[in-house]
């Protein structure tokens, strides 16, 4: 999170990034730190505020969240 210095962004993603796995792969193309922080094994994702697995499809206007490991309580 801190490493990426971005908490929220509205982006036009290419059509090949039509699943969470595709979106992560596309974001990792942004470079080193992105590739490192957004490794599939490190993050959990949510679509429209519900947890979702990597194969989940992304639709237009979806709210996508990519989390670092959670640590509440």
């Amino acid at each position, binding site marked *: 999170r*801190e490493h990426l210095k971005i908490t929220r962004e509205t982006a036009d993603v290419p059509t090949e990034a039509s699943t969470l796995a595709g979106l992560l792969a596309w974001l990792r193309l942004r470079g080193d730190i992105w590739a490192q922080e957004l490794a599939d094994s490190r993050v959990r994702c*949510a679509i429209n505020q*519900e947890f979702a697995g990597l194969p989940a499809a992304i639709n237009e206007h979806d709210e996508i*969240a990519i989390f*670092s*490991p*959670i*640590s*509440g*309580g």
Partner: protein
Amino acid sequence: MSVLIQEDDFDLASELTALRSGNSKVGAMVSFVGLVRDFSHNETIESIYLEYYPGMTEKALNKIIAEATERWSLINVRVIHRIGQLLASDQIVLVATTALHRGEAFAGCEFIIDYLKTAAPFWKKEQTKEGSQWLETRDTDVKRMEHWHNDTVRKSA
């Protein structure tokens, strides 16, 4: 059945009084309070800082409570989670349950905090003079959560 996420501290006494009032069938009340342990393991830490995902976190907590009330016959449930900056000995989280009998109150309370730890989007960082460090999910928390998937556990209490 209610969830609250707030920066302010909570008053344990009035929460528990409110939880058990209004239903004379309550035979058991179980509460869990999570506290910030001192920082003796790393004395450079001055505080912790908690963030959440407004909207999703409340939804996730309500879903956890719904699952608990489906498994066990709970009369009432209260979850309060604090966010923002917290110091040693501060209260972080309250989970309290009431039920006719203690088995259900205990199981429901423990289930909710175990799931909260791994399935409710909160993030905690430790703050030192030099900077801060986000914490990882604890392996023991993942194990405790997985324990509830076990079939004999699902049906007990």
